């Protein structure tokens, strides 16, 4: 009788122990759930705004060589062309739109397609006056991932007046990606990330290091020589500089 009583007591104690273990477990489970909800909530709220504004380059801007290396412009034409026309541009700037849709095709026809000049576009988003310029620059870099940089570059400028006044442009930019034949999902994932925020920031820093203050800024250079800034960005002005440099031995 005493043995039965002892067994029963042991079982009761064991059950009690199991019950308190489960209570502790449920408390820990609840704590994990709360922490998880906080972390996911932070992520869902955006987590950061690095993708729409410059990011910390961790000292790269102090080293000109590293800055130039990171701030890769996008080249159109023959890499070995004797002259380079560099444009520092902003996708939300009306002057850049005018240049890109009006002047660049003439330069392309007159010089780039003939292998005399290569055209290099650097991002210089004027973020203090153009809310979507940084994101647009990143979007163009995302287009490069799918080999559609210049098509997307043109699409952004062509549609500039439509998106410039919008409060939210991510969906619109993804739509343009589809229109030029890109995979919208892949493009959207890139755009909704921080990808290329460092490259675009480096482009901006490079422009500042060069003392540029506005867009579009057009410069012509020969080889590794000093770049010559063209004061006006119309075709005849640039043509005159290019032909003069070609005559001096660019070709």
């Amino acid at each position, binding site marked *: 009788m005493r043995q039965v009583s002892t*067994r029963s007591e*042991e*079982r009761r104690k*064991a*059950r009690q*122990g*199991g019950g308190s*273990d*489960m209570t502790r*477990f449920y408390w*820990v*489970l609840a704590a*994990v*759930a709360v922490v*998880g*909800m906080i*972390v*996911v909530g*932070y*992520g*869902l*709220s*955006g*987590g*950061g*705004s*690095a*993708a729409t504004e410059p990011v910390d380059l961790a000292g790269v801007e102090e080293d000109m060589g590293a800055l130039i290396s990171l701030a890769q412009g996008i080249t159109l034409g023959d890499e070995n062309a004797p002259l380079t026309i560099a444009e520092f541009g902003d996708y939300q700037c009306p002057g850049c739109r005018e240049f890109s849709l009006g002047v660049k095709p003439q330069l392309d026809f007159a010089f780039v397609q003939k292998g005399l000049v290569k055209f290099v576009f650097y991002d210089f988003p004027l973020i203090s006056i153009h809310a979507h310029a940084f994101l647009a620059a990143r979007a163009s870099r995302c287009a490069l*991932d799918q080999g559609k940089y210049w098509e997307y570059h043109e699409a952004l400028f062509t549609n500039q007046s439509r998106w410039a006044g919008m409060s939210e442009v991510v969906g619109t930019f993804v739509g343009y990606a589809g229109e030029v034949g890109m995979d919208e*999902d*892949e493009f*959207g*994932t*890139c755009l*909704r*990330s*921080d*990808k290329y925020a460092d490259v675009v920031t480096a482009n901006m820093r490079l422009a500042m290091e060069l003392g540029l203050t506005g867009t579009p800024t057009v410069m012509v250079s020969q080889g590794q020589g000093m770049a010559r800034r063209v004061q006006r960005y119309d075709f005849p002005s640039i043509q005159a500089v290019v032909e003069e440099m070609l005559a001096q031995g660019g070709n």
Partner: protein
Amino acid sequence: MTADLRPPANRMAIALLSLAGAFVAFYLFAHALGWTGPIVCGVGDCATVQASSYAKVGPIPVAAIGLAGYMFLLGMALLGLQPAYAASRVVSGALVAASSVALAFSAYLTYLEAAVIHAWCQWCVVSAILVVLIFLFSLPEVGRLRQSPARGHP
């Protein structure tokens, strides 16, 4: 001799780890659906990994598969903590099978990050670590499976 009525600690651990994993998978799934802003990624290059073609199996984001897996493991572990299912071979078998599949899938994804995509996503690494731990905590279930089936339990 007293029957061990305490809830199996390994199942508690699996439940906790699975819940944590479910949050990680849900975050990546939400990002795949475009519900989030830029992916929070202090370490590695999550954007490259998430933008790669390996982030989906057909039309299904890998994160959705992960979320379903973690929810299944969580459900089984919680079920196995109920006294009526403490000796259930179905629960033990499900935990061993699901954690083994998860380990194999996670190893494949980690290989892709290392050898194919050449980029790491901190969330994927966290998930891989969670899966390894879940697998280790599921090993005692193998012993339970080897025992003769308890009467009254499937």
